[in-house]
């Protein structure tokens, strides 16, 4: 699932995140091309450079905040509308990533559609 939360900001929810190789295969970018480099960078940006909220919570904050929703509320990772569903998302998804798309993709319906397509996520509105 992918939700646009603000200007240039998305929340990506994965049940099974794709490996880099699998992601490149999905995007049909031919190896050693600019497209492959760009898509590889996008994968790295999401899965290596962004904070993964489940992991962050479990490693550092689970003792302090008994519920995932307490954590997201305190750090304001989720917009207010999504906050009531935070614990359900935590139970349902293996990987939850807030992705700032600035410099990667235009924030519009086409951008959302494109991200949803390459990551194979269902777009949802707030």
């Amino acid at each position, binding site marked *: 699932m992918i939700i646009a939360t603000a200007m240039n900001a998305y929340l990506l929810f994965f049940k099974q995140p794709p490996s880099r190789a699998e992601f490149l295969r999905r995007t049909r970018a031919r190896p050693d091309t600019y497209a492959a480099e760009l898509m590889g*960078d996008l994968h*790295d*940006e999401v899965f*290596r*450079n*962004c*904070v993964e909220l489940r992991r*962050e919570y479990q*490693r*550092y904050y689970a*003792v*302090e*905040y008994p519920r995932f929703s307490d954590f997201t509320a*305190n*750090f*304001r990772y989720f917009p*207010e509308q999504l906050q009531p569903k935070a614990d359900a998302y935590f139970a349902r998804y293996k990987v939850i990533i807030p992705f700032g798309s600035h410099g990667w993709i235009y924030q519009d319906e086409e951008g959302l559609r494109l991200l949803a397509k390459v990551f194979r996520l269902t777009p949802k509105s707030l």
Partner: protein
Amino acid sequence: MRPSELARVAWRNHRPPGLTRIWQLARVGLLGVKLGAMTRSQALADIRQALARLCTEIRLDNAAGYLSQNKLLENLILPVLRVVLNAPGLQNANAVTINQAHIDLVDAKQKLAVQVTTTREASKITGTLKGFIEAKKHRNIRTLKFVVFADPSPNYRSATTAGWKRICRGKLAFLPAQDVIDLDGLFRLIDNLSHAKLVKVRNIIAQSVVGTEYIDVAAAIAGQAGRQVEDEKASGKYIPDVFVETSSAKSQARLFLHPFLFFERILDRCDRRRLPLLNRLLQRCGLAPIPMPDRTRYGHDGTWAALMAAADRLATDLTAIEMTVAAYAAIEHGKPPPTTAKPEGRHYYAENAYRIKNWVDATNEWIGEMREELKILRSRVFILTGKAGQGKTNLVCDLVERFVLRHGIPCVYFTGLQLGRVSADLPDHIRKTLFKDKVPAFEDAVRFLGDHAAERKQPFVIFIEGLNEHTRLAEFSGQLEELIKAAVRHPSIRLFLTCRSEYFEQRFGTLRHAPFASDLHVLESAEQRMGEDERARMVTGYFKFFGINPAHVADHAAAALGKDTLLLRFFCEAYGPLRNPAGYQMPQITHIYRAQIFDFYLKTKLRFAVAARNRLPGLPTVRGTEANLFEVIKLIVGHMVNHRKFADVPLSAIPADKETDLHVLLGEDIVIRRDPVNNPTHLGPTRDVLNFTYDEFRDFLIARYLIDHVYSQGQQAFLDFLAAGANGAENISEGVKRFLFYWSRAPENAAFWQFYSTQQAYAESYPEEIFSIDEAHLDANDRQQVRQIVEVGDKTACRVARRLIPRLPSRYPLLNLELLIETVAARDDAFHAILIEPIFSPIYDRLERQSAVEAFCESIEKRILPQLNPATHQVIFDFLPMLLPIEPKPGLESPGMSAIRMFVATAPAVCINGLLRSLQYGITRHRPYVWRLLTEFIPQLLDPAATRTMAAAALGTATTATALEINRFLARIPAP
């Protein structure tokens, strides 16, 4: 074992030759001669008892898992075996290499390994030997010993021991008789030790978890901090759930309080840094890459020394990155590349130099943040300073309750006020509080606390909240310095202190120049800059804590409280069920009346101060009353008024017999506070003075004092005071006038009002403050007076009009939006332009310009439409047409037009009624817009014929623009 048996064992093992035998026996104490503090027989008896207890503990451990093997290893077995096996280099194998299978303790120098087991079964030894040989560990280890803590001691069959020898044959010299040590065998080895070593072992065992001299640090500190937090809650200083994390203070505190955990988070941030992308860019530009942090270099074994060394390595690597990045700092788009650049990258460089520049800036910023985090991690003393009322207590209590205690971080929590009530010096007080007389010196206490914390891979934290609350600050600052000096000697002891900013610099500023200055981290808490969301969360938190049902507080009242933390706090104290008797029913709060809230708050605080005083042990037997405490407040206010000086009342203003009451009030802190004042010559000592914690609260009290004690003595004295204020002699006249106005409007002060309402000060306060008076205390004269103020059409009129707009007649029968509409409707277009237009000037948000009319309409949409009631809300739609000509765009468009179109879709009748009624207003500039809208809404008109008649009648007096629109309307509306 009886003493005779002990003697026989000693005789057999020592076999001292000739005459030295007698001396030797005397030395070891078997002849009853004491050598030093401990005889050999006493030492052996202590060891025997402790080992017997150990067996019991192990049995219990196996049954319930209470005493972990790791704790026994670290605390008892390892130090004992170091002595018994003469292997001082013996250490926990997991500390040397992670996941050491088959062995628990290792001495690499002596090539000795030890497996400690609590099971008697031979299979454990067999399995270990097999694994040991298979893992080829015999290449580095020459001797493998097993220490079997089992009761009764195991007795292995010869076939079993033969099997062990077969496993080890040719690879490891394993002699079961020597290398498998049971409890009896361990005791024999201990018995064979020299006296000095025997006493050393005895002391180790005695101070271990099974010894008689064991200091149970966990039990000593258990619950202390939790109880303190509960006390802070009970006193109302700590309000759970109101802490809103707006600054990095809590993040920094987490790092300081749990460095082992949060160092990993720093490393995670390193991993996330986009340095590979930067390096690819540099490489394509023909430039040298920057060094990458290598996470494998920052591993540690869980000891403090190793953690700090890892942090140092990371800091060194950051410096290397910083130096490389610095070489690219001068890069700018359009300029030639650095001389070190390879020529093949010049074209790529020419296109991407600006990207390098951006990366360099971002990387430097990141390095700065990482350095700051590493500095906090290494700090030993965290000092949070800030002004009064900024939430330091809340932050500390929140940290202790939700972070420190939940992580099991050992800590103690004192307040400066508590420490000021004890005569002992600070280190000694802490020692006695925790260990009573079990531990003789503070240094020992620090060692115990430090060891306890190090074992848990956590710091031991001493929290001292509100250093400035100590009653003997000069003495306390010296003690604090000594405490820190002693504490920083042990790597796992940390201190978390809070202090008001002005006190810290004046009274504790020497800490910055002490030998441990580099171990300090001083954080000046930033002023809270909250957004709407954060303010709403704060209000929700306060309401929740004080048991206030949000439904009982009008939205606009809650919003007003969110903008004023002090008023919010006072409001909750005054109206919350928490501070009121059982059965209290909170009234519906539609408006915030400042004076009422302050008055009620004062009474509540005095009631609590009395209760606090009565709880204090060791204070004079005369119990305090609210009247006693109020008398002290009166003395302070009286001093201010008489001396015309509204700050820094000297302590001498309070007579000695009222000192106890004064200290109780100071303890509450929220009413009055003690401040340090520098000696003007800077040569003498500083002195303390009294101030009210909040200036506005002081003005409130001064106003009350002026009415009760100055005005009652004679009008002239009162007028003199006001005249001095008017001439600028006092800088508090505005605040005092405000509260004088409030008090004068109270029905019980009618006589004072008769006098005060004729004064200039009253008239000056009126336009602003009349809206803070309970509507029940207003009358028709007030309505008339407000109308007169609005009719002037100046800036004051605009301010008053702004206050009238959100007031609906249903809630405010006298001063309301209807009054504004009546006043404006009766005037002309020029008046509309000078009064209404300035109110709706555009709002400039951080990112974009927003139409004020749109913002107003958005507010109506959110707050009014969901509960629209034509009877009470019609007045809003009567007002909307007045907004139509504001911010006009070509083609008779405006934000008001868009808003009304939107509202008509949801509430057509009430909206169209408003439009039709607006045609009766004296102002005319909105009329073309209204007729344009009515033309659009023809299908929704309730009575088209009547509207047509009205249009035809209006045509005669209409302006050109209006006439055009009316003709359009008439052309479109169906003929009757």
